[in-house]
């Protein structure tokens, strides 16, 4: 329930294309409000604005939702990681993270993907250094950043159409074939 | 849909609920987590939704919530706890007077109402009192026996273990009561 520590206000948001009015306790930050409305892709990894797990687009700008007062966002347009792609139809950046094993515990990944998408919007062909710079305020504890950086570079390539992505998102051209690919629709299990 | 505030003295506590004019008392109870009362017919014909309003057993599915505003309402949640059952509840358990259990909360609320006004009913009186409460599983036999058993328990309540159980055993499980296998009749054979 909203943190009614003090008064609560109604704010107008357009979240992932849907206009809605949400109740926000004065003690709430934007991340809390978004999470309360089911946008759990917005993660909270710190006590405010230091880990990047809560990154979302606010009117096109990357913001850490946990460091933002709801009022500040009143009337604005918000995009969370949930708006990028679906599990069967991933955004190229999401697909690249999957294919490059850039995901372990995954808690920091939504924020990192939002940041990566922002980067590639402004700079479709970044250098490794530029990728690292862009991700420098996203804390990750599992990956050593190695594969996330590779994933973003791979995604850049895909988005520039240098690598064709299989319809199912498939594997990066480099990756070995999936065991499943040889088998039929259900691992050869069905007799059609 | 027009909304209103309903205040109930619910199981001893004053509570206020959002409700729409069309709502029955059952609608409001169930929407607020009091799911003990069951929805069986919406016409007051099965008795599954029986609760007490100002001490009287009513079928809450045909009681407009507006009519209950300000009233004191007792539901099954107000009776006993699982480890501290009301004697009537304990009697239903010990007599295996339940199967699917869907009718039981209503059955028990009706029974407590009966025993409040008639602490020592005859079998026929019990049957009369429960005649508006349907049960599809038990053939009523063990239920009637349970209510008669409960009357005795209530009578000698002080003598009964605090959990209302027939034996000293903390959770009153028959297995623990050391009944000889196969010859256990603490499920209330013929009274």
């Amino acid at each position, binding site marked *: 329930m909203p943190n009614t520590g003090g008064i609560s206000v109604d704010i107008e948001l357009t979240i992932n294309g849907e206009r809605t009015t949400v109740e926000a306790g004065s003690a709430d930050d934007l991340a809390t409000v978004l999470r309360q409305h089911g946008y759990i892709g917005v993660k909270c990894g*710190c006590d405010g604005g230091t880990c990047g797990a809560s990154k979302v687009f606010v009117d096109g700008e990357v913001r850490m939702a946990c460091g933002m007062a709801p009022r500040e966002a009143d009337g604005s347009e918000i995009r969370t990681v949930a708006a990028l792609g679906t599990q069967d139809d991933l955004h190229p950046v999401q697909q690249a993270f999957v294919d490059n094993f850039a995901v372990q515990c995954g808690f920091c990944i939504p924020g990192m993907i939002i940041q990566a998408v922002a980067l590639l919007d402004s700079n479709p062909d970044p250098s490794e250094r530029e990728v690292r710079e862009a991700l420098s305020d996203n804390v990750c504890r599992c990956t*050593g950043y190695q594969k996330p950086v590779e994933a973003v570079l791979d995604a850049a390539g895909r988005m520039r159409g240098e690598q064709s992505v299989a319809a199912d998102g498939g594997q990066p051209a480099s990756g070995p074939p999936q065991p499943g690919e040889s088998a039929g629709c259900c691992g050869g299990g069905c007799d059609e | 849909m027009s909304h209103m505030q309903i205040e109930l003295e619910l199981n001893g506590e004053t509570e206020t609920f959002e409700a729409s004019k069309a709502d029955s008392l059952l609608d409001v109870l169930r929407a607020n987590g009091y799911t003990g009362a069951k929805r069986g017919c919406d016409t007051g014909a099965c008795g599954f939704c029986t609760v007490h309003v100002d001490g009287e057993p009513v079928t809450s599915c045909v009681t407009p919530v507006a009519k209950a505003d300000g009233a004191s309402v007792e539901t099954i949640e107000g009776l006993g706890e699982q480890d501290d059952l009301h004697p009537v509840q304990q009697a239903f358990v010990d007599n295996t007077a339940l199967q699917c259990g869907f009718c039981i909360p209503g059955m028990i609320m009706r029974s407590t109402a009966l025993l409040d006004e008639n602490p020592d009913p005859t079998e026929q009186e019990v049957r009369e009192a429960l005649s508006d409460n349907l049960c599809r599983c038990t053939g009523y036999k063990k239920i009637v026996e349970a209510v008669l058993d409960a009357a005795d328990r209530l009578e000698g309540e002080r003598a009964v273990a605090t959990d209302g159980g027939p034996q000293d055993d903390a959770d009153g499980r028959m297995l623990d009561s050391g009944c000889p296998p196969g010859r256990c009749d603490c499920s209330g054979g013929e009274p």
Partner: protein
Amino acid sequence: MSEDDEPAKPDGGTASQSDPVEDERSEEHPLEWDEPENNDKAPDERDSVSHRAEKYDDRKLVTGQAKYTADYEERYPDLAYAAVVRSEIPHGRVTDIDTSTAEAMDGVEAVLTPESDAVPDAKYTSAGQSYPEPSPWDMHVLNEHVRYIGDPVAAVAAEDRATANAAVEAIEVSYEEDDYVTDPEAAFDSDAPQLFEDDEVENEIVGHDYNRNRMAHIEGELGDVDAALDGDAHVHETEWETIRQSHANVEKHTALAYTNEDDRHVLITSTQVPNHTRRQLAHLFDIPIRDIRVTKPRVGGGFGGKQAMVVEPIPLALSLATDRPVLYEASRQEEFYAMRSRHPMKVRTRTAVTDDGDIEAIDIYALSNTGAYGSHGMTVAGNVGSKPLPLYSKVPNVHFEADIVHTNTPQTGAMRGYGAPQGTLALEGHLDEVARDLGLDPIEFRRRHHMEVGDLDEIAGMMGGEGANRRIRSCGLSECIERGKEAIGYDDLEQPDADHLHRGIGMALSAQGTGVAGDELGAAQIMMNEDGSFHLQVGGVDIGTGADTAFLQIAAEVLGCDEDDIIVKSSDTDVTPFDYGAYASSTTYISGMAVKKAAEDAKERILDWGSKLLDEPVENLETGDGTVYSENSGDSVTLEEIGYEAAYGDDEREHILGKGTHCTEESPPPFAAQFVDVTVDEETGEFEVHKLVVAVDCGVAINPGMAEGQIEGANHMSYEMAVSEGITLDDEGRAEVSDFDEYGLPSATETPPIESILVETHEPTGPFGAKSVAEVPTNTVPPALSNAVRDAVGVRIREMPITAEKIRAKLDERGG
């Protein structure tokens, strides 16, 4: 990590080397392992194993749909939120807690103090280990005797977070302060303030001496070290110091407790050890084990920080008190000052080495600062010796000793590597120094001594008795070194043009274990659906590593189906079989083997049905490609056909089930060779790490993509240990770090590129030849970087972290 150094086991393990004994050992620990058929598969025979199968939860993770503990909030409309009042003094007694203001606040559901009925007063350890835990029972859920700034004193449940936090602020705690001590050496003094009275600890550990704040002392020896040190060989001695490192899990410790409609006390919690937590809660709260259900959703990293029942008792107590579901989510500040951290240690290494470079003796002594409480204290210290020393199993005289001491500082615990990082720094830094002293190539020097296939390693068992000795059946160290050298360009290193810049390369070896030898258990069950798919229920715990995916691959390899045809349900104590949990690098090896056994059990039944349908003897049949096929006739029948026939057939029917349970005395070491390429500015002492290369032998990598991920993440953590201050404390032992921006976790820009190399060997005791991988790369960057700096500018940094200032100071020292 090695819990085989158990107090219960007295044998000091002065194992003689004489041949008859050696022969007995050979029988006890044969080189040949009678390996189940199909366990050793050539690469081209593998269908699922060693393929880069997509991590099964990745699509949820990248779309933000995966659910971590806090994401279950919405499911409990009447959820209450917990917050904890923590000690503000380093040492003392709580004399009074005024909760009246807090209790009067609107929306406050309950306030608990050490006196509350809902709060157990039993002593326990939070360590998620075997039972009884090899850690002292020295903790209380809430404390009247506080021992560090952060000790929990009271807890609150309120209808929203803000109210809970406000209530915490409103609680007044009065203390009677005691003297405190924060330095381990000082604490060891007989007249130092004492943290524990004798009656404040149960299940004490070997060598404890609470008058001197010592919670444990351990020691073990092979051969006669003193004699060797007194001999003609050069004696080298070095001292090393390591930081207090934070796990910095991105997901904070979070637990949600409620009682469901079946009267089951349920905990949804971010843990590595669901079954241990279930047992510990049962004992602590005096609830039958059977009435508790611990389940783990997605977990945002553990690294050992969640190999403990750290927060679960608080929401459970509050839930019992309020009769509502309660969520406790630690704050990031609490993570840094009140949860767990890596034991800071001082380690002394002595060796006796002949002029031509034969190591005659190694002696390591560790002083471990376990902080205010003793969870994992003894076992972590044990690993300082028992993990790295076996690298040199040919050395005849080995001695290891450690003191584990309490101070009024934040609590330590299990952390990835589990003592091995501290020990590896002390050993690999030392040997590099020795080699350079002797003018030997440090790598060649290592080669002469390091472990090989066939060795009988008695060092791992040095403190655990001979039972813990082990035969080395797979060892890729040489190839790790070769490929690492190549990748880092060891032999053709270009020096920078600028004279004040010097480039150097450092190398370090490492060995870990694969599970706790003789103290693990994993189990799994498989059910076949009529459409030829399977449900796999396994106790093993995936904390983000991809273990669930590895389980799927192992099962799929056996059952001959696609990973997607298996639905995995893991780590739910009501539903899945038992498992010790995700620690000690055990998951693939122990839980994975249990999965393999369960799958083979089910496969037997599948082949039986296959032989019915194909009318061929079982011996001819195999599974693959979603079918059972005959190697003779080539006939085949799909798993789906078998599923439907078994479930609905006319003749007779069976639900095809399989079960497997696995335990072993074995804990084969995975190996790593770390290389660091650094350039140091001799004027400023500033240095730049160009590249980290780490080559790892983890046997057969079930999923190379995930194995690389483990290596890179571990190496990052290891790099942090080499260059970051970690959690620094003020004089009162108060953590000076309260959020990520104050903690030196290397960012993407600060982290050098990491090249991970997988060196495949075949470990006959592991599922399809697998060993572990998660911990070994955590051990190596501090020594390798220290060695690289030494290589570049000739100075040696022994006290972590390695900083420009320290290098500069050493350079000046040398200059002056």
